Structures are given as C-alpha cells and as structure tokens.
C-alpha cells in the first residue's frame, strides 16, 4: 500500500540521518586518535601530567591547558549560576507579565552576539577595568589568599572566567526559565494556600521541582564554557602556567589550538595539538556523562 511505502521511506531516510550523527562521532574520535599516535607514542601518560610546552625542543605536556580549561570554566560557572538562576526566577516568577517577553528576548539576544565581540569588549573594556579597580581592590582586601595574590595585570584567569561566565549566562538563564515554567501551577498554588510567601514558593516548591532540569542547564553552560575559544583567547593571557592566583595568565586547550595550529610545523608538534583536542573531547564527554547520570539518578529517585 501507498501509505506503508511512504512510512518505510521516511523511516529509511530518518535512520540514515541518525546514523550519520553516529558515524560523525566515530570518525571524529578515529581521526583524533590517529592524529595523536606520534604524541602518545613519544610521551605516553606523561603528556597528561607534565607542564612544559616547548615547541623548540619538542617537549609537550598538556597539564597547564587542562588546568586552564577546567579552572576557567569552573570560575565561569560559579559566577554564572547564581546570576542565571536569578534571571530565570525573575523571568518566570516575579516579572510582571507584560515585560517578560521583552526581557526574555534580550537575554536570548545576548547568546546571539558573536564571541569575537565579547572578546573585543573584554579586552578593551573589561580587562582595563579589572586591572585598574577590581584586581587592586581584591588584592588589598583579600591579598593574603593565594587566590588574589600577585600583580594586577588585567588579562588572566579571572578575566577569562568572567568573560566565559557572561557568555554562558544567556544559555543557563534561558534553559532554567523554561524549566521553572514547567512547574505546575497546581503545586505553587498549594504552597500559596499554606501561607507561603512568593519566595517560599520558589524555594520550597519551584527549586526542588526543577532540580534535575537545572543540572541539565548547568551541563549545557559548562559544555559551552569548555569549548569556547575566541573571547577567552583574547583575555586569558595565553601563557601555559599553573598558578594559584586568579590574576595570573593562563591558557585553555581551545585557545592553544586556535593560536598554534598554523605554526605547528613538525609532526610531533601537530600531533601534540591533536592529542590536546582529543583530551578536550574526552573532558566534554566525561562531563556530559556525569551530568546525565546525575539527571537520571535525580529522576529515578522521585
């Protein structure tokens, strides 16, 4: 019958598209692995735990980049999470109905700004501001902590973390807002009827209801921060160092790939960069897997 053949065709086409995704992932992993072979051969596991990055003598270690990537993303998350949740709560629970669409749109527009523009703004506006006001003040009052020690040079881990946080706020805020909006009115009203204030309804009913979804929102934001390249490259200082101070320059995997691929003339140099890419891929995958596990655990616990 005609209908049946139509169904078959659709199923066939859809299956092909779905397989393309799978094939793409497999191919990417294969290419990354193949490209990394010389570097893996030469450095083995030491690649992961050494800090030298010396293209001249061809000694390569990934540790500063892994450190820079993860720490800058964590800083971004620490800053972005409370701000995003605040925005989402405002948009879904507090803002007067008529202003919600406009503010929502603005938040979403933030996500549409090209990252090079964030980078330029970061370099010419934020970094001087950090250098002149924020970092000296932090140094004066909290300088006894290693976190805020050293010279205020503006570019560095702090600048990288902040610019990343600004870039992931729209994502986390928009997803969180959607999650809060799915909390049924039925339960919020039950809270109001018990004499809960607006804030108590948010804290005791909306947040617990949204918890597993929020893990997903955080996962999306963190994933974006891990891989973000352009803006962070412009403000993080691009020095493969591991320092306790947030004022010190750092380097992320995505940044070093963007900066050095064109210069990588020797086979081992190129291969080391590809292995870095493989590591970034694995970090993202691991993080995603853990987050998904958390979401599933949360769902089944209910």
């Amino acid at each position, binding site marked *: 019958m005609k209908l049946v053949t139509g169904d078959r065709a659709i199923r066939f086409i859809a299956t092909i598209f779905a397989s393309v995704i799978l094939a793409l992932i497999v191919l990417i992993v294969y290419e990354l692995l193949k490209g990394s072979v010389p570097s893996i051969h030469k450095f083995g596991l030491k690649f992961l735990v050494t800090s030298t990055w010396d293209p001249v003598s061809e000694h390569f270690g990934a540790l500063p980049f892994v450190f820079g990537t993860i720490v800058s993303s964590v800083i971004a998350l620490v800053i972005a999470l409370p701000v995003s949740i605040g925005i989402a709560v405002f948009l879904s629970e507090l803002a007067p*109905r008529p202003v919600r669409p406009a503010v929502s749109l603005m938040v979403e527009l933030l996500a549409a700004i090209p990252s090079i523009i964030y980078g330029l703004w970061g370099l010419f506006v934020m970094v001087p501001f950090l250098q002149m006001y924020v970092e000296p003040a932090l140094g004066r009052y909290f300088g006894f902590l290693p976190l805020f020690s050293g010279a205020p040079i503006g570019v560095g881990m702090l600048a990288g973390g902040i610019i990343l946080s600004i870039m992931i706020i729209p994502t986390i805020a928009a997803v969180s807002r959607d999650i809060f909006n799915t909390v049924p009115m*039925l*339960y*919020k*009203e*039950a*809270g*109001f*009827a*018990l*004499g*809960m*204030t607006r804030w*108590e309804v948010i804290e*005791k*009913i909306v947040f*617990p*209801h949204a*918890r597993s979804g929020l893990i997903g929102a955080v996962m999306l934001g963190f994933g974006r921060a891990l891989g973000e390249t352009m803006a962070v490259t412009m403000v993080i200082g691009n020095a493969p160092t591991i320092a306790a101070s947030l004022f010190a320059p750092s380097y992320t995997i995505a940044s070093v790939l963007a900066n050095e691929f064109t210069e990588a003339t020797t086979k081992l140099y190129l291969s080391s960069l590809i292995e870095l890419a493989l590591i970034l891929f694995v970090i993202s995958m691991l993080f995603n897997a853990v987050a998904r596990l958390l979401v599933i655990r949360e769902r089944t616990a*209910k």
Partner: protein
Amino acid sequence: MAKKLVIEHLNAWFGAVQAIRDITIDIEENGVTAVIGPSGCGKTTFVRCLNRIHEVVDNAMVSGRVMLDGVDIYSKTSDPVLVRRRIGMVFQKPNPFPTMSIFENVAAGVKLNGVRRKDRIADTVERSLKSAALWEEVKDKLHKPATTLSGGQQQRLCIARTIAIEPEVVLMDEPASALDPISTARIEELIQQIKERYTIVIVTHNMQQAARVSDYTGFFLLGELIEFDRTSDIFTNPRDKRTEDYITGRFG
C-alpha cells in the same frame, strides 16, 4: 451562631471575563456551607476569592469585601500570606508536593509558622494525619514520597496538610470529584468529624453530597448567587424556580 465570613458585593474577573457577580453571603462559624451549581458557574472562583488565591492567577481581579471576623481581608493593610494561614484550602485535584515525603507534606506549613522543635512537628503531623483519617494507612511509610499514595489518600493528605496549620476556615473545592465512591465517603465522613473545629466551605456539583454534609447551601448560576439558605430548605422548598430546576436535575 456567629458569622465567620461576611461577603459583600464580591466580583471577580479573569482579564475582561467576569466570573462572579455581586455575591453577598454570610458564612456561619463552625458550620458547613455548600456551594452548588452547574459547571463554569463560578463556584471555584468564588471560594478562591475567600483566601485571596484568585489573585495569583495572571490578570485576575477582585472587587468587594470579604470580612473575616469583621476585618476585610482585601483591605490595604491585610497581608494575603497571613489571610491564607487562617483560611486553608483543599483543591479539586489532589496536589501533595511531589518532591516531598508524606511527613514533609504535612510538616511544610507547620514549619512556615516557625515551629522548629522536631518533637512538636512530629506531634502535629501525627495529630493531623489522624484527623484526616490517614494515619493508620501511612504511619509505617511516613518518609515515602507522597506520590506513592492513591488518589483518595493523596486528597486526605492534602486535608491533613491544610488542617496541620490550624486554620479557622477550610475551603474545599470539589474535594472528592476525582475520587472513587469509597474515598468520597471517607472524605464526607471526615468533614463531619472536623466541622466542630473549623468553618467549612465546600464546593460540590454533587447535590446528594451537599445535602449530606452541609448546613447551608448556596446555588450559583452564571456567576450569580441565585439562592442561599439552610440546606434542608434549599432541597425541600427552594424559593427560586431555577434552583428547583437544578436540584431536580432539569439542567446542569
């Protein structure tokens, strides 16, 4: 008998749609007042105006006065949060908090009132569950999620949650409409047991239920209060033709 609630010229809107018109009615203390009428006539909206929960809906508006012990709950100085602690509500659809255990559901409102001592909270939870005729069924699984209960049990849990904060008035919006006959009978029995301590306003579209549980009955039609009287009078001797038509099942 004293008048617990005095409602004067109460109107309520959803945006431009007026749901109830110029309702004036007195609710007797420690009595059960039933609100009956066909679907969409404004019964739910009416009771939701009595604890100021109507206004949490977008674009919702209210005018008129609702005096609780002589003080208008809609006056500028009255706080809706405090009003709702004195006037509790059980909703049509059982809505225990799905993220909380049975115990936590009943304790939720108690903690809001500043009770911190664990033993006192536990006492109140037990007492409320006993009042709601649910204690025997749940005492061994108090820390299981509330969603593991049956619909009828969930509704009794909601009643327990409401009376745990010792409101003076309990509003019930068709509390048994989603339940099977046995659960319905238990809820009706429960109303009889707790009515000495609370003033109860119950919405129902089930006239037998109104006749069984209530002392007074108000009949609503198209947003207006058509007739209000002792339940026995409404059912044996209605003054308005429309009331008579409704209770004899001619429409609705």
